[in-house]
């Protein structure tokens, strides 16, 4: 039997106080960071209070009000208040409220809260984002969040893994979003269920933001987590956020570690991808597949997937000097206050408003059909978000097409799904 471990297994071994763990076994592991938001934390807080528990390590808890914030209605306001009161009661310093909060998975790396080799759980399925920075991170539910807050530990089944080998570099107008949609198209929406996706090969050809986008959507093919090794670019990013990286923190899979399957993704041959309703795996490629002329009513540019400054720059680059097409609403949501401020400093907000787009404060809002851009029956949207399920952005009779910021911006200008080179 092999004693070689994947990168993910190594992080589990370290957090379970073991030399070796194997795929399929159950371990209890120390948790370095526990995350919750205004939807999931109130349920966790209720569980913790019912159990008569308290918070063992307040400094390891991060509470971000981002989904329905600024509070969209009275019930949302009550949920925010429950989290706010809890944060005060337990002295949780990593509590982020409107004005300081942003979309959690964009905010945490920005604040330097994500460390390589750490183990992060969050009561939000897109917590898998942080694996881009060389850690283990995964989405859990509210009861798990409560248990992790109370004990500092959590039970896990050690995952088997899929090796994703990247080749080459992305062409112009092709992004990490297109790469991950292509990967989901290959694996299917449950092709990686319970497994790690570990990236190998030409990882350094991707920007750190592209890697965050790719890990963010790992859950859309069922993966438990995704992992990029820390390279020079990741280290620069981490250092710029105040995180020092020791040699010990640079986790890499053992030579000969076991992978159930290998997928080779040729980045240089990719084209802008669009995931058609109603599954993220329903992917077609602009310029390669004939998709016809698909009229749209709305565009959303933002979310934990694509709300970072690079995404804003990409969209603004396409929209500069142009107008949003008649009959189309374009909603732009910088993911964090820092991204918003950078957009102001760089004149990007002005490009959007001149084009006739709406610019919102940070919120998850329309991505999950919360508010700030809900679709009516019969309407279609191109969104840089992560899910296009039935009713995800509003009416069960509406449609969501997932794409990159380049494609979303181009589509906003033409009024139908368009490649950036068509503008």
């Amino acid at each position, binding site marked *: 039997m092999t004693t070689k471990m994947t990168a993910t297994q190594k992080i589990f071994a370290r957090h379970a106080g073991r030399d070796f763990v194997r795929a399929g076994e*159950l371990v209890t592991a120390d948790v370095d960071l526990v995350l919750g938001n205004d*939807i*999931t934390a*109130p*349920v966790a807080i*209720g*569980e913790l209070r*019912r*159990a008569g528990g308290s918070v063992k390590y307040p400094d390891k808890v991060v509470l971000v009000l981002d*989904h*329905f914030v600024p509070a*969209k*209605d009275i*019930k*949302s306001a009550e*949920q925010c208040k429950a989290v706010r009161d809890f944060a005060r009661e337990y002295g949780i310093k990593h509590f982020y409220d409107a004005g300081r909060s942003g979309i959690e998975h964009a905010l945490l790396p920005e604040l330097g809260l994500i460390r390589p080799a750490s183990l992060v759980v969050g*009561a*939000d*399925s897109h*917590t898998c984002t942080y694996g881009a920075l060389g850690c283990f991170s995964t*989405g*859990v*539910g*509210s*009861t*798990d969040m*409560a*248990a992790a807050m*109370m*004990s500092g530990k959590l*039970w896990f089944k050690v995952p088997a893994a899929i090796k994703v080998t990247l080749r080459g570099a992305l062409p112009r107008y092709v992004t990490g979003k297109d790469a991950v949609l292509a990967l989901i198209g290959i694996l299917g*929406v*449950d092709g990686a*269920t*319970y497994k790690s996706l570990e990236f190998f090969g030409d990882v350094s050809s991707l920007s750190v933001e592209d890697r965050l986008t790719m890990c963010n959507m790992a*859950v859309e093919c*069922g993966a*438990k987590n995704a992992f990029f090794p820390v390279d020079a670019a990741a280290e620069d990013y981490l250092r710029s956020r105040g995180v020092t990286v020791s040699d010990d923190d640079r986790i890499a899979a053992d030579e000969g570690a076991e992978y159930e399957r290998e997928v080779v993704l040729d980045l240089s041959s990719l084209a802008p991808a669009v995931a058609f309703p109603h*599954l993220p795996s329903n992917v077609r490629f602009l310029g390669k597949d004939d998709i016809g002329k698909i009229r749209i009513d709305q565009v959303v540019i933002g979310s934990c997937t694509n709300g970072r400054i690079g995404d804003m720059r990409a969209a603004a680059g396409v929209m500069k000097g142009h107008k949003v097409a008649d009959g189309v609403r374009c909603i732009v949501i910088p993911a964090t206050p820092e991204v918003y401020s950078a957009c102001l400093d760089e004149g990007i907000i002005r490009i959007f408003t001149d084009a006739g787009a709406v610019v919102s404060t940070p919120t998850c809002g329309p991505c*999950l*059909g*919360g508010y700030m851009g809900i679709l009516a029956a019969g309407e279609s949207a191109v969104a840089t978000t992560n*899910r296009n*399920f*039935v*009713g*995800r952005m509003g009416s*069960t009779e509406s449609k969501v097409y997932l794409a990159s910021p380049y494609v979303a911006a181009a589509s906003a200008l033409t009024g139908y799904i368009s490649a950036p080179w068509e503008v």
Partner: protein
Amino acid sequence: MTTGKVFKYGDNVNTDVIIPARYLNDASAENLRAHAMEDIDADFSKNVRKGDIVVGGNNFGSGSSREHAPLALKASGVSAVIAKSFARIFFRNAVNIGLLVLEMPEAADEIAENDILTLDDDKITDETTGKTYPLPPMDGYVKDILEKGGLMEAMR
């Protein structure tokens, strides 16, 4: 032993259709029960009775980590969810709140809408067809959580 009627759905029943996000501003059992399965089966909350069983295809519970999804089924009186396969966060959440989830591909294929099932400790009987299905082996730790009624209870 529990007996209930089957509500059958297809592949990729995601947590957005189990409990749409527009209702996530209120985690009360009444609110979740009232809107359970609303975007895939508008009459579910009207028709479901205590003990009834939800049967799905592949990747049941995919998408969002919202625990409100298994909570909505539990609040509706659902005694078990049987599927060909589950998305991992939903499976974990269901176990953690004490909702029985059973990965049984053959049963999920053969059991039909409106069949009457009897759930025993070791098997499921489809009273409509007369066929029985042994329950899959369950990891000891998971079994312990389910028997105690959830993770919080098991931690005590």
